[in-house]
């Protein structure tokens, strides 16, 4: 693995929130490296700092101190607009509650990030969105509105949206949190498939059994990383899915 490119490098990262009288230390000096092609789970209870970490990794928030280099770009030097540009070209987000635009077709939802990239023309935008939807297996639902799709399908549209700009890393925030077990497994098997195709994925979750589908677990507690070991008994979501008893409503 050592010959692989380092996508994310975090050095002594600290984040404090100033709430007037008290200072909340959300992150107390994080050091972390994520290499290309990794599937990293960020684990931890609420208040452990994992959400703060994800916000900073996603260039939505700035650290109080420390360094964060993404794909060779130190984000500390960038202004607000440059950060937006970084999110647009290097990052893909998947949220717990899908965050699809209502009354907007799946295809248009997937196209959204490319709208903010002036270099991409309408034709290419459409082609890439179709390709992304095909990659998540929703080519036949392209013109459906979110309310015509199941939760799992909506999340797959969201994943397609995170793929469409060909990011260096996909950041998923509790992406299976709203889904039942079977659909969770479906989504995880999709993530595993994307990872096998070479995508780097950072997956925030608090469910240990979901984290077992990833290749490495980074566990946060009280603003520190307490472990960042590889997953030894990694599970295949596709296999688990096949073993699930078939229910009537499917």
């Amino acid at each position: 693995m050592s010959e692989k490119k380092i996508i994310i490098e975090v050095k002594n990262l600290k984040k404090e929130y100033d709430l007037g009288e008290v200072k909340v230390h959300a992150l107390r000096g994080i050091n972390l490296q994520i290499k290309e092609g990794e599937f990293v789970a960020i684990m931890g209870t609420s208040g452990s700092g994992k959400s703060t970490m994800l916000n900073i990794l996603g260039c939505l928030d700035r650290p109080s101190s420390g360094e964060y280099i993404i794909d060779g770009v130190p984000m500390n030097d960038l202004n607000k607009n440059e950060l937006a540009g970084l999110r647009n070209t290097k990052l893909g987000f998947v949220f717990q509650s899908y965050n699809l635009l209502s009354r907007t077709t799946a295809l248009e939802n997937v196209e959204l990030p490319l709208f903010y990239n002036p270099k991409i023309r309408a034709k290419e935008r459409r082609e890439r969105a179709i390709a992304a939807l095909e990659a998540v297996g929703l080519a036949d639902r392209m013109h459906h509105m979110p309310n015509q799709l199941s939760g799992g399908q909506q999340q797959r549209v969201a994943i397609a949206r995170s793929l469409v700009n060909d990011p260096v890393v996909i950041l998923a925030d509790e992406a299976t949190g709203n889904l039942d077990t079977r659909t969770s497994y479906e989504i995880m098997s999709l993530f595993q498939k994307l990872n096998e195709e070479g995508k780097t994925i950072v997956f925030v979750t608090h469910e240990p059994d979901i984290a077992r589908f990833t290749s490495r677990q980074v566990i946060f507690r009280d603003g520190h990383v307490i472990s960042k070991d590889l997953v030894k008994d990694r599970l295949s979501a596709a296999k688990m899915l096949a073993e699930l008893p078939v229910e009537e409503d499917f």
Partner: protein
Amino acid sequence: MNYLNTFKIALTAIRRNKLRAFLTMLGIIIGVASVIAMLAMGEGSKSYIKNQMSGLGTNLVMIMPGAEAHGPVRSSGTSKLEMSDLEAIARNQYVAAISPLVQSSAQVVYGNNNWSTSIYGVTQEYLPIKNLVIGSGRVFTEKELHALEKVCIIGQKVATELFTQGEDPLGKTIRVKNTPFKVIGVLPDKGTASMGQDQNDVIIAPYTTVQRRLLSIDYIQGINLSVTDDKDSEAAVAEFKQILRREHKIKEGDDDDFNIMSQSEMISTVSTVIDALKYLLGAIAGISLLVGGIGIMNIMFVSVTERTREIGLRMSVGGRGNDILMQFLIEAAVLSVLGGIIGILIGYLLATFAGSMLGVEALVRPYSVVLSFSVCVGIGLFFGWYPARKAANLNPIDAIRYE
């Protein structure tokens, strides 16, 4: 930034909320429509009244005795106009036609019918001055004028009121204040009343006859004249003033004891009044435009709050603050411009409809269209700015998790 994309995004957002977009636009539509309609009606009435007054002759100048009113006290009692004044003015180069005027209200009787009207004592030149032509019969002659003949020309209204059986008035004798007058001419229909005076409700007779036989006076009550060219009326009025001051031996610095009014001056006075009215109505309508603008701001605020998560999402996928600002600004501008265009159309229809009901041609001037259109764009940008600013300044982390 890619403005075309931002524009598309804004349009899509409006399309997704058609009913709300329409309701938001309604305020603007009503505002613009009423501004357009009010201004069009104002313009229409102005040109209507102008036409009506021009029908009386735009080069008409009227001279009346008595000073202009200064406060409540009027000192008109002693001043008079004489035929010598008229003769002095008649020699002036600007005068095309000139006629003295003596006037009396009169009860006229024919058979069992009687009618209360006004009788004007004038010379033959009065008719061209007032743009009058004889419908049937003839004008009185110079000889009849000198001989104080009791002949008269009657207007349509007088003819229909007196000759109810439909007989031909020509040659009949009517009694004006108990003096018999022979009808020698009838004026054609001059149209409806204008400026509170029915032009059909008159009797015209030689001034000598009215002066001596009806009023028993030897002065005249006014002078009507037409100037050769209405462009000269201002200069002409100034000269007439000098002539009359000389005739009346008015000392330098003293007030005139007469009053000269030209028709073109009256037209411009009336136009000013109508313009003032028009702008007043337009301004009242403009207030509804302002209310419409506030409606846009209100809806944009609701929209920003309601779409907080969308804004957060757009930011997280790479939308910059400016992109978000432009999106909402364009949305507001599109709403108000679209509302403006619909408003202009409805205002036009409204003005045309109201115009045809009132018998006034509504005139939609380009300036009113340009004005209300640019006000719409301005309102959209002005009232859209604050909500758009709010959207652009949202923190993406808070926005994306907003419930």
